[in-house]
C-alpha cells in the first residue's frame, strides 16, 4: 500500500451530491487491463466537449470550460471537496485510480459510498469524512478564497485551513496505520495463514459442501 502521512494542497470543489463512479470514470475506460493511465479520463463526460474513447489523444480534445477542474483557479488541485455520498454506484477501483492519477491525494466529503471509501484506502488516496456543516463551511471558504490550500495530517487526524480553522476527523485505526506505514495488507493477512487453515479445517467438518 502507498504511504500517506500528511499533505498540503490546492483545493477544488465538486459541488454536487451523489457523484457516482460512472461519472468519475466512464465504462469505456474500464476495458484497460492496466492499473495506470486513467487520470486523463477522470470525469471524462463532464470534462471534455466531445465523446472520449480509449486510445484517443486526450490533449487534442476540446475541454469544457464550464467544468470546474478546467478552471484556471483550480488547476493543480490535489484536494477535492465534495458533497454527500461521493463515489456511489459501481465498485470499479478505476475510480480512485483515476482520481489519484489525475493528482488528487485527499477527498473531503460529508459521506462516501462504502465500496469507494474502501477502495481509496487501498491506493493511498485519503477519503475524509467531516460533518455536513463543516463541509458547508469549507465550501464557503473555498469559494471566497482563491488559491485556498488545506493541510491534512493523518497522524493527528486533522484538516487545517492554514492560519484559520481546524477540523478533526475520524479514521479506523487499521486503515490509519496501513496508510502511515505503507503496509502490504495481503502480506499482513498471510501472517495469519495458520489461523486461516485451521478455520478451513473446522469449517470443512461443519459445512463440507462449501469446499467440494
Amino acid at each position, binding site marked *: 500500500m502507498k504511504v500517506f502521512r500528511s499533505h498540503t494542497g490546492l483545493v477544488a470543489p465538486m459541488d454536487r451530491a451523489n457523484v457516482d463512479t460512472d461519472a468519475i470514470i466512464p465504462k469505456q475506460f474500464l476495458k484497460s487491463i492496466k492499473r495506470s493511465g486513467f487520470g486523463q479520463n477522470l470525469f471524462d463526460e463532464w470534462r471534455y466537449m466531445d465523446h472520449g474513447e480509449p486510445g484517443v489523444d486526450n490533449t487534442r480534445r476540446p475541454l469544457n470550460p464550464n467544468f470546474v477542474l478546467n478552471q484556471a483557479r483550480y488547476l493543480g488541485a490535489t484536494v477535492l471537496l465534495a458533497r454527500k455520498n461521493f463515489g456511489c454506484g*459501481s465498485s470499479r477501483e478505476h475510480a480512485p485510480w483515476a482520481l489519484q492519477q489525475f493528482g488528487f491525494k485527499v477527498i473531503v466529503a460529508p459521506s462516501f459510498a462504502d*465500496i469507494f471509501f474502501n477502495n481509496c484506502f487501498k491506493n493511498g488516496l485519503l477519503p475524509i469524512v467531516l460533518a455536513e456543516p463543516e463541509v458547508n463551511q469549507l465550501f464557503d471558504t473555498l469559494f471566497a478564497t482563491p488559491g485556498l490550500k488545506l493541510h491534512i495530517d493523518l497522524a493527528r487526524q486533522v484538516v487545517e485551513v492554514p492560519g484559520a480553522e481546524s477540523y478533526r476527523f475520524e479514521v479506523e485505526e487499521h486503515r490509519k496505520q496501513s496508510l502511515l506505514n505503507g503496509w502490504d495488507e495481503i502480506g499482513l493477512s498471510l501472517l495469519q495463514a495458520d489461523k486461516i487453515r485451521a478455520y478451513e479445517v473446522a469449517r470443512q467438518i461443519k459445512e463440507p459442501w462449501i469446499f467440494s
Partner: protein
Amino acid sequence: MAQSLYDKLWDAHRVHDEADGTALIYIDRHLVHEVTSPQAFEGLEINGRKLWRINSIVATADHNVPTTSRKEGIADAISRLQVETLDANIKKFGVPVYFGMNDARQGIVHVIGPEQGATLPGMTVVCGDSHTSTHGAFAALAFGIGTSEVEHVMATQCLVAKKSKSLLIRVEGQVGCGVTAKDIVLAIIGKIGTAGGTGYAIEFAGSAVRALSMEGRMTVCNMAIEAGARAGMVAADEKTIAYLRGRPHAPQGTMFEQAAYYWRTLKSDDGAIFDRVVELDARIIEPQVTWGTSPEMVVSIDGNVPEPNKESDPVKREAMERALQYMGLNPGTPMAQIKIDKVFIGSCTNSRIEDLRAAAGVVKGRHIAANVKLAMVVPGSGLVKRQAESEGLDKIFLAAGFEWREPGCSMCLGMNDDRLSPGERCASTSNRNFEGRQGAGGRTHLLSPEMAAAAAIAGRFADVRQIL
C-alpha cells in the same frame, strides 16, 4: 442472545479478530469477471503469490461480450484483449470453473452463480462488482469489492473488514396485480434514498418479501447497493432450498439434506436487534418509474415529474434541476406522457426466466410502437436463453418486434456495442440511471420487465395494470 441473520453469517466467518474491531473474514465463493480481475491476477504474479483456493472461484466473461452473433468473436480490440486476458489467467492459474464467452452456460455473473448452485446459503460471496449483493437472496453475506480486495481474496481467501450496522427493511402485505419485486425495491430506494443504506447490511423481510420467488428476492437484493448498502439479504426458507435442489454445484443426495438442515437456521431469531428498522406497506406500492439520474428519483407510473421549486433543500433542488435538464423533462409532466426511443430488458437485476416470462406475457399478440427504434431482450445466461426458447418466448418477442440477443451485461452499462446515443430515452429493467450509464448523453428510466414491455407497446410509459 437473539441473533440477526447478519450476526450469524458474520460470526460464522470470523477467522481472526483484531484489537481495533476489525476481523479477518473468510470468503467462501469468489465470483470473477473480466473487468475487475486482470490487475488482481497481475498483482499476484508480480508478488509471486498463488490463489489460496482455486475451487472457490467461479468465473465468466459478461461485461464486454457482444450480444449479437459471437461467431466472429469480439470486434472491439480492447474489449477482446480484456476477455482474452481472463481466458489466459484462468488457464495460467488453473481455475477449474470457467464459463467462457462461448460456453453454453456463460452469462451475467450474478445470474449464473445461483443458476449453477454456486451460491449457497450461509456462504460469504464476493465479486469485483457492486451487484454482488444479489446473492444475499440466498441468506448469504454477499458484497462487492474493488480490485485490490479481489487480489486479497485470491491470495488469502480472506478480507479485512469491520462489521456493518444492521438495517431491517420489513415490507408487509400483499402487492397488487402488476406490482413486482422491482417496484418493491425501487419504492424502498425512493423512501430511504441512495445513501439510506450506507454503512449498513440490509435484511429484507416481511410477508411481501417472503411471498417473492427466489428470482424476485434476487432482484430486491441486487439493488441493495442502489440504496447504498454493500449487502442485502433474505432469510432462507423452503423456497431457497427448493431452488437449489439438483443444481450442478449445490451439494447432492444426503449431503444436500444435511446442508438444508443447517440452511433452515439461517434467519433472524425472534427478538434480534437491528440498528435501524424501516417499514413499508406493500399494498400501497404501485408500478414505479424513475424520472431522474439517481435511482432514488422515482415515482409511481400515475405520478408526475416532480417540481424542483417545491424542494426546500438547496442541494437537492439543484440536483433535481440538473437531472431534469439532463433527462430533457419538464416539471409536472405526467410520467405516462413521456415517449421513449429504446427498450432494454436484461441485466443482473431483471434477466432471469421469470422476468422474460412476465415481459412476454405483456407483449404477446402485440407489437412495439412505431416510435420505438429498438427494443431488445438480453437473457441473463445461456441457460436462461435456452429455457426461454424452449417455452417459445423468443418467438413472442420477435413477433412483437423485439430483438432476441445473446447473454451478457449489455446495455445496462454499455461496455460492449449496446449503447444509447445522446438524447435517446430508454425504458430499462437495469439498476442505474446515472448520467451516461447506458451511453454518453443517454436517458435511462428504470422499471420492471412488465412495465418495460408495456412501454415498448405504448411507445411511452404506460401502466401495465391497464394492459394485463
